[in-house]
């Protein structure tokens, strides 16, 4: 302690300490300034490229959807050949396909799905699905489900059993789009509570994707997990599934707790009106 005090009192450290700190602060500020400039330039460049690529992509997709040009025709386009290996181009292309696919149904949508497979973009999505980064998995799941790749269903459901909530919601949403109630049946054995946000997302997925076949929703009412039962009740209420009344009545008689009983009784009243 005395040594430290003597060193402090001698003051020999003050100047080097202050000079070094000032140097560090100035250097950090300057590096950050350069990073800001770089980030801004990169954003501007990306915006420019996005517009540039957008023109080409719109032309290509238009010819696929409306002019029946096969992928072999597209792949011969010199511009497409030049850019198809560029990751940013593929990213923009994927965004355009998803946006367009949302607006079309039937044969037009199928043509886009075909292009997604033939162009190899599906492989990008599958690769992302195997990534260790959850955000890439999320992106892959969104892409695969939007383009109706039903073969990915099993992998998607496997992901939905993970602990990351954002990933779980995305996967359940995608699973519901691809296979309806099959995507949520496994929740009956789910041990952790499912929070209201996840429940609302599941319900919304059913409504958004207009899932007509609700066979199996009643199984949720048999779960040991109260939050899963509540999800089942909410689904029945929101989708107005009057055909499930017998199951709800059954639940009223053997509800695991008063809250569930009360919710089930309320639902029966709502459905009976």
């Amino acid at each position: 302690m005395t040594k430290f005090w003597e060193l402090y009192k001698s003051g020999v450290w003050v100047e080097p300490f202050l000079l070094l700190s000032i140097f560090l602060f100035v250097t950090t500020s300057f590096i950050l300034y350069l990073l800001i400039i770089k980030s801004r330039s990169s954003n501007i460049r990306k915006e420019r490229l996005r517009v540039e690529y957008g023109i080409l992509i719109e032309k290509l997709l238009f010819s696929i959807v409306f002019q029946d040009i096969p992928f072999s025709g597209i792949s011969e386009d010199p511009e497409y050949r030049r850019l198809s290996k560029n990751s940013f181009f593929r990213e923009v292309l994927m965004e355009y396909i998803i946006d367009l696919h949302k607006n079309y149904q039937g044969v037009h949508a199928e043509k886009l799905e075909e292009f997604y497979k033939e162009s190899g973009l599906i492989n990008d999505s599958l690769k992302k699905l195997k990534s260790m980064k959850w955000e890439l998995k999320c992106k892959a799941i969104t892409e695969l489900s939007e383009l109706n790749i039903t073969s990915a269903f099993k992998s998607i459901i496997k992901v939905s059993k993970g602990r990351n909530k954002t990933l779980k919601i995305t996967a359940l949403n995608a699973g519901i789009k691809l296979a309806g109630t099959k995507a949520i049946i496994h929740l009956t054995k789910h041990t952790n509570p499912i929070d209201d946000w996840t429940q609302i997302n599941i319900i919304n997925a059913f409504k958004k994707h207009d899932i007509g076949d609700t066979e199996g929703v009643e199984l949720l009412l048999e779960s040991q997990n109260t939050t899963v039962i509540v999800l089942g009740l909410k689904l029945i209420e929101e989708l107005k599934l009057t055909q499930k009344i017998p199951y709800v009545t059954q639940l009223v008689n053997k509800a695991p707790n008063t809250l569930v009983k009360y919710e089930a009784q309320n639902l029966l009243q709502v459905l009976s009106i």
Partner: protein
Amino acid sequence: MTFFNSEITFFIHIYLLLILGYAILIMSSYLILAHLSTRALKEYLKKNSFVDYNVLLTSQFAPKLSLIAPAYNEAFTIEENVKSLLSLNYNNYDVIVVNDGSKDNSMEILIKTYDLVLTELDIQPKIKTKKIKGVYTSRNAAFKKLIVVDKENGGKADALNVGLNIAQHPYVVCIDVDCILDKDSLLKLAKPFLESHGKRIIATGGVVRIANQCIIKNGRLVEVNIPDLMLPRIQVLEYLRAFLLGRMAWGRLDGLLLISGAFGAFDKEIALLAGGYDTKTVGEDMELVVRMRRYMLENKVPYAISYIPDPLCWTEAPEDFKIFKKQRSRWMRGTIETLSLHKKMFLNPKYKLLGMLSIPYWTLFEFLAPAIEFTGIAITVVFFIFGLIHWHFFLLLLLFVYCFAIMFSVIALYSEERTYHKYPKQIDFFKLLLAAFIEPFYFHPLAMYAALIGYKEKIMGTKGWGEMTRKGFTKK
């Protein structure tokens, strides 16, 4: 005499050691908080890019909210402000405008514009407030979400308490009526209430930004600009630092003491159980948050407060020093009052992180900072008079603090650039950068002076807000 000299030297050394220690402590705490904030922000934005807030729009299970907007002499802007509140992207909500005994014609404007009629409302007040003169609802179905309460003047906290008493929904959103809200702000504010993780979410708050010189159209912000005037411009930078680099970290640590009074949502039941807003303090927003947290901790109920880093609310910053001084001195009084009301929590392990970290941090770096800084200046003057200043070291020390201040502002600018990028114009970025260089000489001494006035007002027993005049936004 030699003994006397060595005594003085010893005390000077101790003083310098304390000052240096304080400076290093405050700087390191800023850097640690900034580090935590940027990490949390990155994670939030990543998660948020996969969130579809529209699910709340179509769901009957979305949390039901009551917006409470106290209004006092707002005749000039009230019609448009209420219209903007009624047109937010959310379904399960109503708007309670509490006219806090305005002396202008706010009430007449509201009655005429929204076709209001007196209505009977079964109110069972849980908090004592000033007398309610009347409760109004609209005859026009288009404004069925609107409830207007006309009451005797009792201050902002009293008006908010009236709103708490009247609100029918389980969650209340307390806002400043003159704030510009993002259209999706309620969707973002409501979501955390659905994500409980075994803890009850008792409050959520969002980021407030400065709207001076921004363009407003139909009650919505359409163009973001950086003010030309230096005082509001530096406040833009200050808010960026506070919200992006400070509160985000406290939010992550679950040690937030303050949800801005301009825009925050609360669990009504807990707010009422905690006693509602304290009408005796001018820092009622901070005080309520601390009291709600204290209530939860004392009753051993697991809870959390959620912080949303998205810019959800835009407000007007003072443009002249007189108003700025009033605002900042009031903030200081509010801080002193809250800390003193809850002094029991200071370094009390019973209150966990709140007592052991948040409250001591606010005491040391928010409440005491201006006093310590002022003492430092005074002692420097004494040293100067007695020829004790070592100019070389003194200038190095000044440069050390100045460079840190600039670096910290640049970190905030970098954080903003990589996240929300709300100031895309090149000129705006350079305006903010220039502000970072000027701030330590111009803004900081003013802020310190205003805080010292706050001390003085507290000692003199000054009460109330004082008149806060606003210039109004640029409209398109």
